[in-house]
């Protein structure tokens, strides 16, 4: 058997699984998005409708779409609400996770007694199921029950029903996400830190560099490419946020993310499969745009460092 045929043989099982459960659903979703919604019957599709679903989503003219998530007096179309919420969430959570992740990575890196324990305690939140992460923050903020509801209300930061208020719910979801995923960011950054050539630090010491200078001129530029990859992973995750919103029982009506929009269209009062598919393709486009920006950044930064 030629090497070529052998390679295809080895790839076959993997790509068969991917074809059935990833490539095909992807293609099918894109196709579905061009067909009209039908609310009567068993949720089958209507006739070919071209880009009607997209136009209706973008112009907010789909009469069957779920009622505006947020306070109706805002008069903002559903899609814009979802887009704004998701982008804000992505920016804030990824920024917070990067900062905390860097601190975690430095804490995990040193060589000291008890390092194993410290590493365990840092990594643990990352391994916790999303539903439990949501449960924790739900129990903290439930009115009349949670420990943090009253103090924050007295300070005037949160309302009396934090889980049902958009601003409060958004903060809770963002903090919950940062709490859980900073450790993953920390792990990836740690991998970057450990691959930095230690000789460089010795040279820096000989030249009398301060701690800040060592960080600014050696650690940061060398870790930067890994940092970008880590941020790319997390941005992809953040743009698809859904689980934590449901699990904290903040809910899609309080903090509508883009994935929320798909689920609401699909399982809401009417099963609008065509529109749901169109919304999910729109998410993919937004994610794709972000990915391209990151990849451009990564390529440019590696070029400026003299890598291929």
């Amino acid at each position, binding site marked *: 058997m030629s090497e070529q045929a052998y390679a295809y043989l*080895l790839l076959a099982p993997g790509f068969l699984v991917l074809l059935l459960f990833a490539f095909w659903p992807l293609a099918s979703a894109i196709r579905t998005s061009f067909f009209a919604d039908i609310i009567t019957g068993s949720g089958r599709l209507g006739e070919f409708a071209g880009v009607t679903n997209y136009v209706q989503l973008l112009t907010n003219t789909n009469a069957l779409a779920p009622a505006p998530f947020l306070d109706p007096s805002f008069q903002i179309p559903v899609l814009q609400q979802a887009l704004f919420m998701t982008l804000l969430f992505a920016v804030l959570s990824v920024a917070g996770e990067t900062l905390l992740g860097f601190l975690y990575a430095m804490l995990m890196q040193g060589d000291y007694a008890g390092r194993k324990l410290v590493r365990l305690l840092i990594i643990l939140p990352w391994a916790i*199921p999303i539903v*439990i992460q949501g449960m924790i923050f739900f129990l903290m903020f439930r009115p009349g029950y949670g420990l943090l509801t009253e103090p924050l209300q007295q300070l005037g930061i949160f309302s009396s029903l934090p889980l049902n208020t958009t601003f409060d719910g958004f903060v809770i979801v963002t903090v919950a996400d940062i709490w859980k995923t900073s450790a993953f960011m920390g792990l990836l950054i740690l991998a970057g830190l450990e691959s930095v050539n230690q000789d460089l630090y010795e040279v820096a010491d000989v030249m009398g560099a301060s701690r800040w200078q060592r960080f600014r001129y050696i650690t940061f530029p060398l870790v930067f490419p890994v940092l970008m990859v880590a941020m790319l992973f997390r941005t992809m995750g953040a743009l698809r946020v859904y689980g934590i919103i449901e699990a904290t029982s903040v809910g899609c009506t309080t903090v509508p993310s883009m994935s929320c929009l798909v689920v609401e269209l699909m399982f809401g009062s009417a099963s609008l499969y065509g529109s749901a*598919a169109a919304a*999910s393709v729109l998410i993919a486009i937004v994610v794709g745009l972000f990915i391209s920006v990151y990849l451009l950044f990564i390529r440019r930064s590696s070029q400026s460092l003299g890598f291929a």
Partner: protein
Amino acid sequence: MSIDARNHDDAEQMGGGSDGDDDSRSRIGRWAKDWMEHPEKAYAVMGVFMGGVLLTTSLFPLYWLFVVAMAPPGQTNISLIPAEIDLTAFVDIFVQVPFARFMFNSLFYAFSVTAIVLLIGSLAGYAFGRLDFRGKTPLLFSLLVLSFFPPATLFLPLFRAFNQQIPLLGIFTLPAEIYGTPGAVVAPLSAFTMPLAIFILTTFYGQIPDGLEDAARVEGTTRIGALFRVIMPLSAPGIATAGILTFITVYTEFFFSFLMTGDSAAEWAPVVNGVLAFQTQYTTRYDLQAAASLVAIVPVAILVVFAQEKIISGLTQGALKE
């Protein structure tokens, strides 16, 4: 040395240590002087302090769960320190709902997806990492693109196919109700976690010198035998990393686990539904939910204890060298 520091020295000498207040000030002065002369000490103290703060933030939510689990049912305004240590909630969760079965379901999903992904992903990773063939770059790129799509996009057609509303691949209608069987969760999650696993394994397999494989071939091993007897053992750290990442992703996953299953343990519902099962139409036992949450964390906590070095070394050694 700065002027400030010199002033501190003076103050210390003038203080003379006659009463307690002065004494403490001079001790602070001595610390300050010591730290300024040996900045490492100051950094070490700062490091310990910051470490303490970070560990508190990462652990406090878990402690809170424990406090809630200790509280008697129906109690409101729970205080930070439990009034009594009452572990009955940890027994009740197994009595009131089949929580053990929910956990078994989740672990079953995690183990089967990991096994499938490692086996199938290893074959693909070997092809990508060690063989030359036409279409390699486009195929790798298709994996990359795939891993960028949100689960929501893939969910709709699979949901409909598993409920016999549309035929799979547009060709064949799936036989029985697949929805409500383990396959409805295992199959999509395998596809969803496969691309990252293939990337990690590709990197590790690519790093093994050709000579070792050639030697095994000369010894009379078949190609596939060389993969399982030489390449895979040598890439153990990579396989461990890919396996652990897959396992944790599946165990913590929400989207498919929540939407692709029914609500009861007998219908293969995972921990997600197990924790939510304490929420009935009339009452919600928060103490039981908290206890159940803590129990559900135990398997992954054990995994992290034993695998943390593997995770870190695996990521360092190759997962990111792309």
